[in-house]
């Protein structure tokens, strides 16, 4: 199974005065929340995905869902449309598709602390029934200075 990972320190807000290398691929990149920014950095790093055969299904599994973006929206006064759109748990899918210039089927799944493992089990089960599945997951990294990891896994292995 192809597995890639990217560690993201979401504590720091990105400096929007510095244009990232992938800026031209993403609509209003400077409004991305930290999770969206991390996805873009990861995808830019992963050359493998640029030419990989596209899957039948993408599973998006972000532990804790959009809690961080939800809190960000509330603490900013709850009047920022740019912050509100990132409070939708599936929004990273649109960013992934902008980066990879593809379209397709996405299941944004969650189940508390089991979210990342759930995605792996679901992908395995779908792979056994003949589907090619990509999983983009993000567990909470409690014992690390990096507090998020973006993980890509491809099924079947």
């Amino acid at each position, binding site marked *: 199974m192809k597995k890639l990972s990217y560690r993201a320190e979401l504590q720091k807000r990105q400096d929007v005065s510095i244009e990232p290398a992938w800026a031209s691929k993403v609509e209003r990149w400077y409004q991305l929340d930290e999770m969206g920014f991390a996805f873009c950095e990861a995808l830019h790093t992963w050359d493998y995905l640029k030419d990989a055969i596209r899957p039948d299904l993408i599973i998006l599994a972000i532990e804790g869902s959009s809690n961080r973006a939800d809190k960000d929206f509330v603490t900013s006064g709850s009047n920022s449309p740019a912050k509100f759109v990132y409070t939708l748990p599936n929004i990273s899918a649109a960013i992934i598709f902008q980066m990879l210039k593809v379209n397709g089927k996405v*299941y944004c799944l969650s189940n508390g602390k089991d979210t990342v493992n*759930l995605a792996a089990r679901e992908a395995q089960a779908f792979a056994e029934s003949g589907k090619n599945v990509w999983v983009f997951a993000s567990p909470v990294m*409690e014992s690390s200075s990096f507090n998020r990891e973006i993980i890509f896994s491809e099924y079947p292995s």
Partner: protein
Amino acid sequence: MFVIDYDCLTAAGPHKENLMTALFEGKVCSHHAEKNDWQSDLVPGGLVALIQNRDATQSTVRDYLSQNLNALWKQIYKNLSQENLTQFMKSKVGLVFASTKGCVEDYIHKISDEASKNQSDPFFDICQDFTKLNPEISFAKSLTVSNACCSSHVALEYVQDIFDSQQLDFVILIAADLVGPFVYKGFNSLKVLSHTENRPFASDRDGLQLGEALAVVLLSRKPGDSKIQISQVASDTEGSSITRPSVNGLGLIRSLQKIKSKRSDLKPDLVIAHGTGTRFNDQAEDQALGEFLHEIGKPLTPITNTKWAIGHTLGASGCVDLIAGCEILKKQKVFSIKAHDLKDPQFKMNYLLGDQNITEPVEQILVTSLGFGGVHASLLLEKKNL
């Protein structure tokens, strides 16, 4: 997959019968939001269709959703035929929750920044509560699908895949979203809330009205004695824009074409459109439906919708529209968009407006949905075709 039974609680009332009465009788269930709706510092005036008799200050969203989803389920369970009950009790059963924001309103306004990083997602507790309230059911799977306002459609597509791979025999699909300060302020910040009236597909449409709904649908892999089948569900997510549907409704066309690829004899008698009443959504939907219905030789297929009456119920809206479609198939009676009778002259399609009606039999219904994050979806609902 087959629809065994269903019910919903909306601003129209506590059951599906109330929903259908509102749609047939032209009852608009919304009001202009007031500060005392949630005792919050929001900008009043946006249209909201709130569930009656729910005091948002007296119970948490979690408690309200858990208790009332369970009450809807208990009624369905009680009404199961002996054949379905026997099958259900000896089969593999799953629980799928479809929601856009779950019970986020319960904690997000008071939790610290630090604690929010480790807070569980706003959906988990609802699934947990439901399984605990139904210990007689051994759930083989329990999870949430949250694909914005297409959550119900995408959840149904997930169930379709689960059934196709024979992982489960039954799924209890629960869907719910409520409106509170977080959701209201979010949509208000996007300037998509109507402050006048919700008029889907009208030339002077100026936005959506937020709604609340809880819905439960029991789905089966095998027909049993079901009379209704969801023949196909398909979604398409793309990245052309985060908050707007794709240009010319392309994503929706792709989802409809996926359905057609599995059903070459697709001849819908009716479309229940997403129809939020916002400028861009309705335009994209009109273009997509126009192109697709012409392609299949059914350009005059009547189009109706539900949001003018009970509001846009976000992640639950697909389930509410599914239930409305099931009732149309059963009763052979179609509701129109009674909120207005003036179609946008730029739109080409055959919208059922005002007191317009159709008398032809309805065998196939397409139900469409659009959501933030570039997601577009549709499903084909029909009388059982075996």
